């Protein structure tokens, strides 16, 4: 077989997929070398657009999204089959799964009205964003593929543990398996980024065009059509992934990618349906107040919603976090875990500190460095620990003793591990030496620990290292966190 257009595209696809995997692998404490690991997320126009709606800024690296969006205006949805790691994965698996007779293959690649759904999802998610609810991360393909690899696939290979990782993994497997029934099911039916790029490709100058005189109507072009874009009819360039397979499949040379030639057929407009679009807008508008009216850490501070150091206040945090999981990937102690319902429905898969799994390393600020949207601000170590000119350290919460479970307090057993590991100077955990007469009437010298709340930074190492397994005898609550003006107890 000739190394044609398809070969060139495959090289690109493999390159970008490899780049994606490379970024994932180096987004790890042991491999960090200052790579731009968030690049895929930054050039995702959907992330940029929806984060713009929620925060009214185009933050730093998100400006790279224009590098994808502007060429799409001219050239169509090339991103979907040349760059997108999820798109390429779907394409590869669809190719692998489908071993049908060619006639069935053609039918699977015909356009179906089902494929409009992605536009409705996009409308709903964009309306959410317009009202400050950023849920794009649930379905954005880049965030989704990152999250799935970070909290389920890579941990499975590396023996890591992630909170609810199997759920994320199951959903990812389901969307990959869907290729079994319709090739690139996700990309054609659900992908909101695809919908956005489809919308912006409707005025494209270069597109797949068919010469009506040369075309014999054999339908071979459908054989490899990734986007189900009807290359044999009125080409749906809003669905076309510019994979160029149809050009190679055509034995008559009837198809070309470029400007219109004298006998080129006309294309089909974006197929969404005015009534359905209006319905989607209505759904979005109704769902926003319901989402906001559902209790979350946005409305009521929750003790267990402890956010990474440098996180914005909860409302702004939720307006920026795309649930991609990069912070969880880079966290050296794995204390950052994807939330299930701890932070409310809105907070699904956003990062939380779970101190029984890890703790926040005192001199580590990596999570803020990799966050593509600055839901976790990139802070310096000086800012985190409160070295001049920063007046105070960044506090994540406050530790509280459970004296009923604490060995020196409840059982007259010496311990004081919490005090030993407390990283602040002076230590937030201090102790009083007492002599008690135990049951045996022998004197025991005990050190009984206390927390000094204004020194505690909520790093959670005390909770992590507490020898009382399960429910630790010292636990961090979010109260006192720097990022919140409301979630406080001290005057």
């Amino acid at each position: 077989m000739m190394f044609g257009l398809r070969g060139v595209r495959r090289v690109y696809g493999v390159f970008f997929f490899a780049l994606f995997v490379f970024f994932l692998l180096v987004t790890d404490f042991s491999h960090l070398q200052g790579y731009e690991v968030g690049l895929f997320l930054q050039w995702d126009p959907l992330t940029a657009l929806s984060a713009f709606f929620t925060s009214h800024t185009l933050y730093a690296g998100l400006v790279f999204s224009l590098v994808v969006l502007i060429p799409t205006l001219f050239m169509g949805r090339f991103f979907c089959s040349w760059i997108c790691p999820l798109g390429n994965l779907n394409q590869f698996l669809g190719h692998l799964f489908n071993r049908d007779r060619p006639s069935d293959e053609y039918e699977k690649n015909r356009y179906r009205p089902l494929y409009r759904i992605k536009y409705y999802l996009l409308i709903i998610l964009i309306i959410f964003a317009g009202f400050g609810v950023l849920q794009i991360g649930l379905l954005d393909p880049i965030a989704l593929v990152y999250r799935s690899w970070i909290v389920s696939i890579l941990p499975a290979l590396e023996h890591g543990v992630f909170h609810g990782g199997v759920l994320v993994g199951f959903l990812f497997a389901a969307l990959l398996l869907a290729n079994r029934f319709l090739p690139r099911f996700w990309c054609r039916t659900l992908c909101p980024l695809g919908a956005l790029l489809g919308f912006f490709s409707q005025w494209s100058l270069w597109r797949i065009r068919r010469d009506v005189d040369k075309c014999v109507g054999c339908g071979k072009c459908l054989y490899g059509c990734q986007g189900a874009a009807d290359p044999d009819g009125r080409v749906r360039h809003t669905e076309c992934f510019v994979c160029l397979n149809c050009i190679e499949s055509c034995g008559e040379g009837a198809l070309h990618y470029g400007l219109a030639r004298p006998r080129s057929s006309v294309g089909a407009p974006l197929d969404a349906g005015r009534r359905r679009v209006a319905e989607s807008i209505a759904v979005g508008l109704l769902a926003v107040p319901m989402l906001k009216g559902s209790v979350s850490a946005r409305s009521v501070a929750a003790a267990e919603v402890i956010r990474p150091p440098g996180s914005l206040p909860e409302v702004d945090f939720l307006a920026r976090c795309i649930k991609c999981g990069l912070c969880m990937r880079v966290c050296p102690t794995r204390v950052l875990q994807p939330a299930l319902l701890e932070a409310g429905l809105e907070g699904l898969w956003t990062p939380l500190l779970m101190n029984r799994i890890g703790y926040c390393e005192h001199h580590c600020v990596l999570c803020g460095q990799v966050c593509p949207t600055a839901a976790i601000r990139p802070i310096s170590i000086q800012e985190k620990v409160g070295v001049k000119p920063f007046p105070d350290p960044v506090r994540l919460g406050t530790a509280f003793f459970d004296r009923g479970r604490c060995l020196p307090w409840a059982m007259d057993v010496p311990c004081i591990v919490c005090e030993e590991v407390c990283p602040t100077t002076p230590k937030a955990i201090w102790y009083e030496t007492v002599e008690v007469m135990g049951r045996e009437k022998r004197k025991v010298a005990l050190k009984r620990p206390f927390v000094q709340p204004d020194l505690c930074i909520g790093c959670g190492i005390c909770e992590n290292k507490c020898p009382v397994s399960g429910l630790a005898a010292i636990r961090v609550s979010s109260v006192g966190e720097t990022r919140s003006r409301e979630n406080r107890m001290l005057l």
Partner: protein
Amino acid sequence: MATRRKAERNDVIEPPLTRRVFLGRVLGVSGLAAGLAGGGYLVYSDRPMRQSLVELKKFKDFRVAADPLRPVMAVARGARTEAMAREAVEKLGGMARFVGRGDRVLLKPNVGWDRQPEQGANTGPELVGAVVKMCREAGAKEVWVTDVSLNDPRRCFARSGIGQAVEEAGGKVRLAGREDFVETDMGGEVLKAWPVARFFHEADKVINLPIVKHHSLCACTLAMKNWYGVIGGQRNRLHQSIHRSIVDLAAAVRPTLTVMDATRILKRNGPTGGNLEDVAVGETVIASLDEVALDSFCLGFLDLTPDRVPFLAMAEARGLGRVAWRELNVVESRVG
């Protein structure tokens, strides 16, 4: 099948791509691209959130000019609240000294609790109604009455009788909802920026209408302590430094006038009360321009002395008034 489809819809061709059409398309798409790029440039920021310009409000000074010829504090004793209120204010120069024509006056009674007037946990509705009336007579355009209650404010204003008394006297109850709080610089030692009900920034004059109550933590709830009700947010944190907080509040809000309801004295189980046996009859209304002197004077109703109430000396040290009220020009009278 493919042939059938072709026959149906395959053969519509594009119009010839003339130079004009081509240029038009190129310009259109380029314009879109330029728009996106320009828009991206405009909203680009190295900050994650657009900095919202939250300006910190500051309290106005609501006081009127001092008049050395008039008393600083006037104590009126009697049985009828309205008569006592009129007498006390008259002694200070009459309401016309404090409220001008067209003023918007904000009254701040203590309406902290879902309690009946007789239980002495809230300012009496008789006094609030009387002061609303006096303000209206002095030409006030609007008389607003507000408090940030601890129980549900609608229940508090209904059960205390204050809601009805205010409406009947021609005033208006304004309850602060979630959106009605504005960040305000309290400028205190412990109180910095706090959310304050916006009505305080919209009023021309503010009249404090406290009541005499026992309080378990700071011994008493009087005029200065009544300013707890201007702030929202997590004000339960103020108890950690209650005396300094009270002084900070009193330093931040300087009212036009204070009229103390000492007709009912909650002597025990404050500040909520609830048992009529804890309520003593005071038969007194005091109008004052010095909150420290007023609070000091009212200690007598609660069998307290200034040394048991640290915030008084602290307030004096901050220049808010005099603890030794006997050294000031105070007049006492009896009506009806």
